[in-house]
């Protein structure tokens, strides 16, 4: 088995064609996938599935966790690895990667404590490796929390990221 990094960029400014990019995990080779624009789209049940609105609209981390997981208690874990800068010059684009060395990871959620709406994204896993990376917006210097659900329990890790210029204008 080979491991691949699947990367997908969504840029609204682009033509309707979405871009898919795949990269070897080891970073030795990079392959850019061909553009495939699907003209006819079949409705997929999962796309219509519930988006956790209340969790995203919550202004506090506890509220977000309550809405997302039904509990707010998390256990600090050294098995969650956050890769992010300690200082970000531009809060509009802060790169963050997370990997969790925990069994049966079902969800990884990323939260920025001092954003008006802390929840950035929740990734639900059903076969992919417990890893994600993304670019996020930060309004100001803040602790960034990663909450991982593993075997029904919540684990967390945090890192403080200093922001020079806030990025929540857009």
């Amino acid at each position, binding site marked *: 088995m080979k491991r691949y990094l699947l990367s997908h960029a969504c840029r609204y400014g682009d033509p309707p064609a979405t871009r898919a990019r795949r990269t070897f995990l080891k970073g030795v080779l990079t392959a850019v996938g061909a553009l495939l624009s699907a003209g006819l789209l079949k409705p997929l049940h999962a796309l219509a599935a519930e988006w956790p609105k209340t969790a995203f609209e919550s202004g506090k981390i506890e509220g977000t966790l309550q809405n997302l997981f039904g509990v707010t208690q998390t256990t600090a874990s050294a098995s969650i690895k956050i890769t992010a800068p300690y200082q970000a010059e531009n809060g509009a684009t802060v790169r963050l990667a997370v990997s969790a060395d925990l069994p049966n990871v079902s969800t990884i959620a990323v939260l920025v404590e001092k954003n008006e709406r802390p929840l950035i994204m929740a*990734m639900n896993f059903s076969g992919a490796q417990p890893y994600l990376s993304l670019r996020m917006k930060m309004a100001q210097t803040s602790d960034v929390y990663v909450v991982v659900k593993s075997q029904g329990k919540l684990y967390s890790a945090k890192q403080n990221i200093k922001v020079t210029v806030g990025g929540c204008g857009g």
Partner: protein
Amino acid sequence: MSEKRTRIRVNPQTQEKIPAHFIQKMIFLLNGKEVAIADVGQGVSKDPLISIRIKANRGDKVKVMWSDTLGEKDETEIAIGDGA
């Protein structure tokens, strides 16, 4: 397609409400089976470059689907090559 809009805005001339516009769901499939589903909020960057890792073999098919707040959606499928 328009720019990502984080919040509801009001057109100052017409007072019309302009709805927020951002991606809410991304679904990753390997050979037709869902391997990850992302719930995405306003807090991702305009070009979020969301990535995941999967174990796969050459020739496996990877599909990514997304949908946004305005009900727009699209999907892309690629077959995994030899990295060349």
